[in-house]
């Protein structure tokens, strides 16, 4: 059975092209452009992985959504891969995956900076789903 991806990102071209790449890798992809849509999609069908952008309309939208998802017992076990145009280290802010370190803690399981090479994307998705 095909693995299911939920992609949450408000950039239409980025979403469409990433969907093309994921589908070529055999993944079924649903999309959501904001947190509300994402929660609706989650309820409809539980995905095997969530691709999440940090900034949607306002800074940190994605981080809030990530925390919301991780905190929900129904969805907390779904791996989240953050794909975003912000740097991991960008001067005032540094994102990372360790809740005990300094800076902004991202409640996610993987982090990729846009733009992402198709092979890298497919490899990361496969790795996180397997975990």
């Amino acid at each position, binding site marked *: 059975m095909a693995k299911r991806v939920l992609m949450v990102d408000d950039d239409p071209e980025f979403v469409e092209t990433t969907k093309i790449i994921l589908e070529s890798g055999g993944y079924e992809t649903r999309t959501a452009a904001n947190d509300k849509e994402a929660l609706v999609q989650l309820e409809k069908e539980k995905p095997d992985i969530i691709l999440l952008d940090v900034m949607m309309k306002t800074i940190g939208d994605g981080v809030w959504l990530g925390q919301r998802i991780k905190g929900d017992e129904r969805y907390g076990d779904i791996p989240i891969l953050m794909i975003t145009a912000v740097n991991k280290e960008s001067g005032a802010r540094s994102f990372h995956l360790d809740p005990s370190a300094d800076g902004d803690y991202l409640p996610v399981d993987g982090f990729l900076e846009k733009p*992402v090479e198709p092979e890298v994307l497919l490899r990361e998705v496969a790795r996180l789903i397997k975990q």
Partner: protein
Amino acid sequence: MKNDRPQNTETPGPVSRPAEPLRKPDTGKRNPPGNSEPCDTAGPLARMRDWHDDFESRIDSLISYLQDLGSRSKQARVECSRNYSKIADLTRAKTRFTYEVSHEIKAPLAAVYNILNVVIEGYLKDDREKQVDLLTRARYRVREIIALLNDLLTLSLLEESTGRLKKEPLDLRAVLVPVYEEMQEYAVERQVHFSWQWGDELPVLLGSPELLRRVFVNIVDNAIKYTDPGGSVEVEARKDGDTFLFRVADTGVGIPEEELPKVFDIFFRGSRARAETKAEGMGLGLSLVKRIVDDHRGTISVNSRFGLGTTMTVRFLEYTKGGAGGETGTHG
């Protein structure tokens, strides 16, 4: 003789004339004014009195000088700390701005890169139509980035206090007629009813023609863009008292109440953001428009009801030679 210094006494500096008149020695009591009794005007006791009085008055002035210094230093400290926190705020704002700008440029570039990858790597196989569609959208995104960079440049020029964007007395008609013609065409394209009311007389404004044109185009373009076919956009451009009034009312989608306060924020993307935009409307959008209006000492305000439409009103003070063409207007 009062000012003679005896040899063995140290004094901290040149002795100045005591401020007070001579007094009788010792009891601590002072003669009531007007009561002049003979007193010892020469001799060692008198001299000691003088030095004592003089010394006291110098101590008094020194004390008050130090107090004054102390309070000025306290003021200085307060001001220093106020300036320091202002600097810290501005630095934070600048960092945040840089962060947001880089995101605004990286995101569309990443989309373009993805599109190029998808086409080049053959993900679309022979679907020529799909390829052209994606590449067209890539081209559009590139124009967005260029528009943003142009706006950033304009913004930085505006912020330069030497004002390289020169202001001159403007014939408004010369600025507005091309705007009218261009927007008229756009309205026809969008099947939106377009009306433009010209005042009989348009005042002269002091401003930069390119920047003001940008303000007018941006506002009218937005109105037309966010109005569905069949709707209407009405423009008023006229003299109103000592101001120039530019008002644009549309029957478009309107702005939700919670978004209204953010309409002039940099990088604000409202929920009504739409794909089709003329090049000039991209970039920093209304935030740059407001900066230009502020820089021209004008006022801008928005009135809107979600689902019903939006009205934007801009006013500029009329330019009068040797007069106020630029004082702050509190009307709006």
